[in-house]
């Protein structure tokens, strides 16, 4: 089978890989729509859409066979995405009069293209002939490059709508996107440095080594290493910000700037925007699973290595390795990880309140970027210490320098920008003049409640 | 790639460069002039990379020198990209400052230094 596949023309091979990637993505979108609405409503203590497609047979009609009279067939709203799609075809797809027609129609396509193209270097199973559409030498950097193209769809949508609110929403959204790209790039840079290669299949196979380089039997998933954990937190926050999801969905929520850059888009084009957003979520979740959670393995155990080390019970370990993901179960666990991550996306959306724009920018530039940069520096120190001396000394150096940097930062911060005393003097008030702000608020007197 | 003549890449780079020259001379919007300058810089980048790929002369024997000459074209491109990025940031800041002062960015009207 593998020989036959390799005998085909490379263009046909690539087309097969593209189809194998695209079709599951398209199939995941309606599931994602239904799942989000039901899960979000469950978390918000209400029932989501559960009516579409429910069939209630008549109790008295003679056309209905006796068994079926009065019975209900419930579909739990699984046809809701189909109903949404049908609505989008039948609703009036108007274009405002003064818009720049070419750009207006182009913007959803320009938004959708990077969303799909992001996944071209992601491996979703151990089959090297089939998985990444292109196992490029620059795999991770390609992902960063294409994610930086996602800005154009938003900017063009905001501009071409000829609506000041849309323009401002588009500019804000794109400023948010480019700010969080930086921290994301730094987080990925730390992992790429530790792995030694930008190729995503190399990153996955480097996560099959020993945990921390020392512990036998456990696999070195990047999220279990200290630098990887910090990078994971940074990447997670940046990922949620890059896909414009809550709590970073300021550009597109309904009560802020009237739904932002997609105000003027009605049905089919708006559906394209939503599709692009969901595909972005799915592909970033895939990237997270690949870079931090060991790709297509289920558990962080080194079953292959154990099979080699203990030849007597190697068949048992090989069976465990196959169950762990080195077989057809690999893509299954990969999709399961993506599903868990999408659940986390919806969970975060249901839980956290939205960030205001200045809080959002401050988080991206003043918190995440320094943390990610310091992480890169620490990874560099760790690599040098590990290669020159030994892994244990490497981790010791990492921890010592990490603690040192945090202590220096806190010392500098207390000297340069000391925290003023009370919460009241730090909150924004309407009578903010410099005179009022510097005075600390006098404590309100306790008044006796008259009985 | 095999089969594509070096002159193809160079011809495209030359065409982009001359288009950029025409743009700088003809257009009056300073932002578009900036974009034509970026076009010229990219044409030069393409020339560097094309020559780095299609080596026209044989490499010297000294390996350090050979590697240096092999990678020199790409290093030049890296630095051109970095300098272009810095230049764009500062230049667009200047244009924004001028716009804020005069509300008019027509380049033919910016002639106060004319003696």
């Amino acid at each position, binding site marked *: 089978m593998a020989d036959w596949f390799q005998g085909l023309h490379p263009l046909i091979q690539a087309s097969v890989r593209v189809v194998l990637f695209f079709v599951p993505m398209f199939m995941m979108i309606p599931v994602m729509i239904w799942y989000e609405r039901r899960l979000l409503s469950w978390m918000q203590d209400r029932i989501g859409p559960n009516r579409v497609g429910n069939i209630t047979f008549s109790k008295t009609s003679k056309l209905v066979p006796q068994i079926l009279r009065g019975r209900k067939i419930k579909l739990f709203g699984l046809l809701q995405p189909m109903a949404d799609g049908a609505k989008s075809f039948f609703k009036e797809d108007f274009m405002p009069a003064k818009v720049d027609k070419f750009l207006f129609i182009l913007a959803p396509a320009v938004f959708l293209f990077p969303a799909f193209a992001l996944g071209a270097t992601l491996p979703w199973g151990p089959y090297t002939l089939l998985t990444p559409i292109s196992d490029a030498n620059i795999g991770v950097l390609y992902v960063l490059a294409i994610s930086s193209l996602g800005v154009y769809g938003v900017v063009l949508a905001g501009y071409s709508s000829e609506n000041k609110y849309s323009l401002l929403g588009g500019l804000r959204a794109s400023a948010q996107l480019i700010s969080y790209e930086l921290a994301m790039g730094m987080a990925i840079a730390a992992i790429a440095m530790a792995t030694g290669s930008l190729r995503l299949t190399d990153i996955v196979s480097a996560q099959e080594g020993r945990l921390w380089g020392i512990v036998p039997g456990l696999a070195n998933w990047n999220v279990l290493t200290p630098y990887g954990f910090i990078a994971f937190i940074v990447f997670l926050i940046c990922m949620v910000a890059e896909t414009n999801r809550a709590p970073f969905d300021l550009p597109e929520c309904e009560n802020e700037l009237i739904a932002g850059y997609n105000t003027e888009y009605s049905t089919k084009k708006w559906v394209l925007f939503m599709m692009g957003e969901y595909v972005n979520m799915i592909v970033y979740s895939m990237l997270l699973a690949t870079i931090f959670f060991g790709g297509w393995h289920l558990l962080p155990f080194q079953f292959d290595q154990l099979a080699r080390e203990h030849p007597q019970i190697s068949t048992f370990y090989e069976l465990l390795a196959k169950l762990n993901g080195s077989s057809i179960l690999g893509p299954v666990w990969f999709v399961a990880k993506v599903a868990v991550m999408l659940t986390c996306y919806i969970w975060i959306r249901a839980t956290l309140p939205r960030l205001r724009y200045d809080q959002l920018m401050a988080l991206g530039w003043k918190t995440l970027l320094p943390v990610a940069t310091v992480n890169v520096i620490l990874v560099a120190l760790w690599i040098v210490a590990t290669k020159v001396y030994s892994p244990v000394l490497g981790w010791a150096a990492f921890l010592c320098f990490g603690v040192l940097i945090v202590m220096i930062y806190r010392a500098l911060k207390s000297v340069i920008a000391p925290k003023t005393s009370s919460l009241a003097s730090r909150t924004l008030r309407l009578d903010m003049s410099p005179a009022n702000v510097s005075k600390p608020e006098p404590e309100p007197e306790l008044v006796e409640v008259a009985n | 790639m095999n089969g594509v003549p070096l002159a193809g890449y160079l011809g495209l780079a030359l065409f982009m460069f001359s288009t950029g020259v025409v743009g700088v001379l003809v257009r009056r919007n300073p932002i578009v002039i900036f974009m034509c300058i970026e076009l010229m810089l990219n044409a030069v980048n393409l020339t560097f990379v094309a020559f780095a790929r*299609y080596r026209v002369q044989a490499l010297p024997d000294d390996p350090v020198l050979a590697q240096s000459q092999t990678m020199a074209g790409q290093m030049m491109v890296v630095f051109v990209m970095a300098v272009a990025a810095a230049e764009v940031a500062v230049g667009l800041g200047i244009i924004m400052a001028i716009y804020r002062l005069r509300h008019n960015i027509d380049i033919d009207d910016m002639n106060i230094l004319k003696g």
Partner: protein
Amino acid sequence: MDALKITPELLLFGAAAGLAAIAAVGVVAFNNAIRSALCLVVNFFVLAFLYFTLNAEMLGVTQIVVYTGAIMVLFLFVIMLLNLGSPEALEEKRDWKRPAGLAIGALFFATIGSQILMPLMKITTVSSRDDFGGPQAIGRTLFSQYAFPFEAVSVLLLIGIVGSILLAKRRMS
């Protein structure tokens, strides 16, 4: 010169180069600044593709990240922000410059093209290896032989950041 063999690579290169050339003309030709910027985006993207065909992968990806993903976004921001103020600030008027500029451009192309393109109708590659554009090769060279220009460029970028922040700050009156 003997005839070129029409290979798929030549056709692919021809298509990409044609698109890049049309986009380059579009940058200069469109009156609307946004359309010029979008043509330039297309041009840079196709140029990144051409870098990939020249095996310079790292440069191609850097082209997408830096030029298409950052510099052109900056251009689009500025054009849109200036558009908010007065739309007539971005239009073109006069006439006699156009033919003169086109003549100069054509003369330039003809002069240099005749001297350089003709002697170099040669086919590919005497270069070192196919991975000469990969991250390993670039990283090894950039951080060893070109470490000083690297650091100097980083100082330059810092100066650029500080300068642009200073230029963009509103005066606190």
